[in-house]
Every structure is written in C-alpha cells, then in structure tokens.
C-alpha cells in the first residue's frame, strides 16, 4: 500500500521533459517534491503564474505572490505572470500537458466527481471543471476507498460531476490504473497489494492487464 507521498512519487514518474503541469491541492501538490532528475517541468498555478517555485524564505514572503491554494510561493527564472482569463486560456485551450488532481469518485467511463457532496456545505468547484475539460492528460490521485471503506472507483459516480469522460489515469494507494473503453485497467500493483485486494476495493468494471506488474519507484 502506498502512502500519500508514494502516490505522488509514482505520479511524478509520468512527468516528461518540457511538460507544463497543473497540480491540484492535496496529494497532487506533493508531486512537485519528486520531479525526476534531468526532467524539466514548469508548474502552472491557475491564479496567474507559470513557473512556480518553492515556498519563500521568511524574508521573501510576498502577499502579492501566492498559488492557487493561497499559499505564499516564489518565482523561478523564466516565470511569467498573467491574468485569470489568460490562465484559463492556457488550461481550456489545451496548452497544459498534464493535470493532477484529487477526486471523491471516478467512474469506469472516465467521469469524475470532486467538488460537491449533497447535504454538505458547498465550497465551489474553483478551477477543477476547467482543468478536467481542458487537459487531455489527467491523472487522478486519491485513496482507492473512502473513510467508510467504500470504493471510489465506481460503475457510475453518485456525486455531482466535475466532468464527463475525461479521466484516463488513476493512481491510488493500491495501484496504477488506466480507464479505457468503459473499464478500469489495472496496470501496476502497489507493493504488498494483491490483485484480489484491488478487485475487492473496486466497484466499477475492473480488467487486470496481462502484463500487470509491481510498481517501481
């Protein structure tokens, strides 16, 4: 079983040199800590920054420079600043190579729900609907089951959708799965996890890839 950092670490292996990447809040943010050596990746923050650096030192904290999670950040050589309209031109226009975000539910047809639980206070979708509609390459980072033990990889989402037919990759604490032709394809198992474990935790249609293997880091 993977912990949150290991999920992030596995996702980081999907990064390619030159990628522009938007990382959501939570596990996705941790991906930035595992960018492989020799791979040059530019992080996009949807509030108007391309080329996001690390957190500032105490002396360099600038209230006018935050990320989409409202955290103080820094810029890097080659960064650019822009408006929210421009930021979502990038996102909606398909210029971001990879989006990593969390989810409450993912369905076997690629639907995703991650913004609203009926009966609970609604906070809003922020930029998530634009990100899932605008990026071709999306990886969902999440636990395989919720706190009650119920599967989050479903036949159909029960919660209000964030986007339809848009998710193709899911990395959970149990493994790495792709979504193809209406099914979850189990590609890699987390260390110590069996195919039976994944089957038990997956409500949606699950196909075990012929070449399923243990995840490498």
């Amino acid at each position: 079983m993977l912990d949150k950092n290991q999920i992030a670490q596995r996702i980081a292996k999907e990064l390619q040199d030159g990628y522009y990447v938007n990382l959501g809040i939570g596990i996705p943010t941790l991906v930035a800590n595992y960018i492989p050596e020799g791979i040059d990746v530019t992080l996009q923050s949807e509030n108007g920054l391309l080329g996001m650096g690390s957190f500032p030192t105490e002396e360099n904290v600038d209230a006018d420079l935050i990320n989409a999670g409202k955290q103080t950040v820094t810029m890097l050589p080659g960064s650019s600043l822009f408006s929210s309209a421009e930021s979502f031109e990038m996102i909606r226009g398909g210029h971001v190579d990879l989006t990593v975000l969390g989810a409450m539910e993912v369905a076997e047809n690629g639907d995703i729900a991650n913004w609203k639980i009926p009966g609970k206070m609604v906070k809003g979708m922020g930029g998530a609907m634009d990100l899932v509609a605008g990026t071709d390459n999306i990886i969902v980072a999440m636990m395989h089951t919720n706190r009650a033990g119920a599967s989050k990889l479903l036949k159909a989402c029960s919660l209000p959708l964030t986007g339809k037919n848009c998710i193709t990759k899911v990395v959970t604490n149990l493994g790495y799965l792709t979504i193809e032709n209406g099914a979850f394809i189990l590609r890699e198992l987390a260390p110590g996890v069996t195919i039976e474990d994944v089957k038990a935790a997956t409500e949606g249609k699950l196909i075990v890839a012929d070449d399923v293997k243990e995840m490498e880091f």
Partner: protein
Amino acid sequence: MKKVVKNATEAIKGLENGMTLMLGGFGLCGIPENCISALVKAGQKNLTCISNNAGVDGFGIGLMLEQRQVKKMISSYVGENAEFERQLLSGELEVELTPQGTLAEKCRAGGAGIPAFFTATGYGTEVAEGKETREINGRMYVLEEALTADFALVKAWKGDTMGNLIFKGTARNFNPMMARAGKITVAEVEELVEPGELDPNHIHVPGIYVQRIFKGTDYEKRIEQRTVSK
C-alpha cells in the same frame, strides 16, 4: 478628463442599493481593500457581488457579509468563510457557483462586447443545467453568457492619472477583466503617478477602461496561507 478622485468614499459615489459589483482579487490577494472599507462604511444593501471568492471572516468581502450587504455572490469558490456558510444555509444569501475559468471568461466577454461564447467546461455537470449545449467539431460545449457590472472595483499596483494600470505578482488575477467589464470602473492603486511614468509596453489595463482612480492607503494585504521554506 479628470479621473483622479480623493479616496474610496468619493470613488464609489453613485454606487447604490441593489447594484451589481465586480470585485477583483483571488482569495485575499489583490482585493480592493479601500473600496471594500468604504462600502462597509456607506452600507449599501442587496448587492450582487461578482468575485472569485467571498473573503474570509473579518476581512475582504467577509466584512460586507457581516453587515448583510450582499444579496447574491457569483463566485467559483467560497469555502473560507463561516459567516458566508451561515447566511447561505439560513437562506439570507444566494450563491451562483461558476467554474473559475468560465467566470474569468464571462467577465472578459462582458468588457469585450462578446455577449455569449461556447466552452467545454461544465458540460455534463449541473453547471450546464438549463443552458444551451451543442456539438462543435465532435465535442460537446455549453453556451455561457457575458457578465457586466454597474461598478467594477479593482486594485492595481501602479496607476497613472489617465487610468493606465499595472499589477504586481499574482495580484493581477481577476482585476484586468473586471476593469474592462464595469460600467464605472474604480481603480485603487498603491502608487499613483503622472502620465508618461509608466512604460506604454508594460501597461496591463489601458486607461480607456478606468473611470475613477485613487491612491489607496493602509494596505493590510492579509496572507491566508503563510507557507515558508528554510
């Protein structure tokens, strides 16, 4: 061409009960602090506020919520405000949640004379309910309409007396589009300079969009998530 006004109180003259406002900012970054203070003091009610967020308890639009000045919020994310939640659950406040990119584009369209546009964002979700959808080149899209406002209240870093604006860092966010979409656009700036002091090639909002401008004071610039590294 007298755009310069003395302060926020003068700048929001004519802003009346029931009007629709745009307020720049992302979280508490780049919000028009002076205009919000003046609004809280003046006490206009039943306002519709278009703003990506709704401030926090005790700061930003949160101050207006405490005074029950807001009838409706049009935002993409409102999760940082307990008073907001209370008013929403009690039915005092209405909220129209709009995806962040669609919100930005709706404001941009409002200023740009584009009454409506298609976007893939929100297709198949409750955001698209009641809206026209259509297939274009094999993909489904939702028709979204432009937003404009009676007053747009924006905050810039530098401005000149002709209304030209330059923003700093990520405090730019929604401010440029909103500046373009206000019938009356009020800009508060940290530094107010004479024409010619700003490089024409660096201007983010040309003065044509700005009707009133003033030098703001006492910026608090509260930070929501102070994250540091060693």
